[in-house]
């Protein structure tokens, strides 16, 4: 199959206010490409959660999005602290967010479970002290 459309975004880890901008841009692009509202919402919510996680837990990172004929692939990678126990982190309600992050509206421990729920495939590769790479796929042909 031929290569799809690819986008690369750097996610600034210092600026909480701008977190989510890459997801907003992807959402606009998917709209322009004429994808269905349901697919657009799945991709943008999953990517937004991942983008926020990179900012609040990992000091920023980068996002690569590829849109092919039958799927959208989102790769989020950071050089943050990594996730020691991925299955624990995947549990609803588990969060290591600080009180400061909670006061900003994050830290419910719902982000990773939401990412799993909104995508058709999600793979987390993480090494403590090195960083985390999350690859999510949303199929277009339902």
């Amino acid at each position, binding site marked *: 199959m031929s290569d799809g459309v690819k986008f690369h975004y750097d996610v600034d880890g210092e600026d*909480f*206010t*701008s*977190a*989510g901008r890459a*997801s*907003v841009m992807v*959402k606009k692009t998917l709209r322009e490409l004429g994808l269905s*509202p349901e697919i657009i*919402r799945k991709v*943008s*919510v999953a990517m*937004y*959660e991942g983008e*926020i996680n990179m900012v609040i837990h990992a000091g920023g990172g980068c996002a690569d999005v590829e849109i092919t004929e039958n799927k959208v692939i989102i790769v989020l990678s950071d050089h943050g602290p990594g996730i020691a126990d991925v299955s624990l982190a995947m549990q609803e309600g588990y969060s290591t967010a600080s009180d400061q992050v*909670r006061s*900003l*509206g*994050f*830290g*419910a*421990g*719902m*982000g990773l*479970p*939401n990412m799993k*729920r*909104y995508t058709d495939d999600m793979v987390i590769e993480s090494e403590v002290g090195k960083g985390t790479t999350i690859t999510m796929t949303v199929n277009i042909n339902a």
Partner: protein
Amino acid sequence: MKIVTIKELLSATVLCNEDCLGKHVYSASCSDMMSDVLAYQKEQAVLVTHLVNAQVVRTAEMMDMVCVVFANGKKPTPEMIELANDNEMVLMSTDLSAYESCGILFGNGLKGGHKE
């Protein structure tokens, strides 16, 4: 329920996109934790919250929400209004608490959503 009805029921002040008050909402969410909001799939929804920062508007945008009600008299920042303007999203502020606001909206027939 039309957005204008929400404004009237909650005696709210509309802060942007007055021209969108005729849009319909079919469900509502209430939380100060954005990932809780993102967990529930809703159509044409309104968000009731106490939280005031740019991520509230982005969260609502990701969920295709059409209106955010800030309870307890909280007011969005100019930057949030700008973000909402890009998306034709109505922001309003009510002096009622989130609890009272939701009670009134629910009592008038606006229901919750379901988890994806």
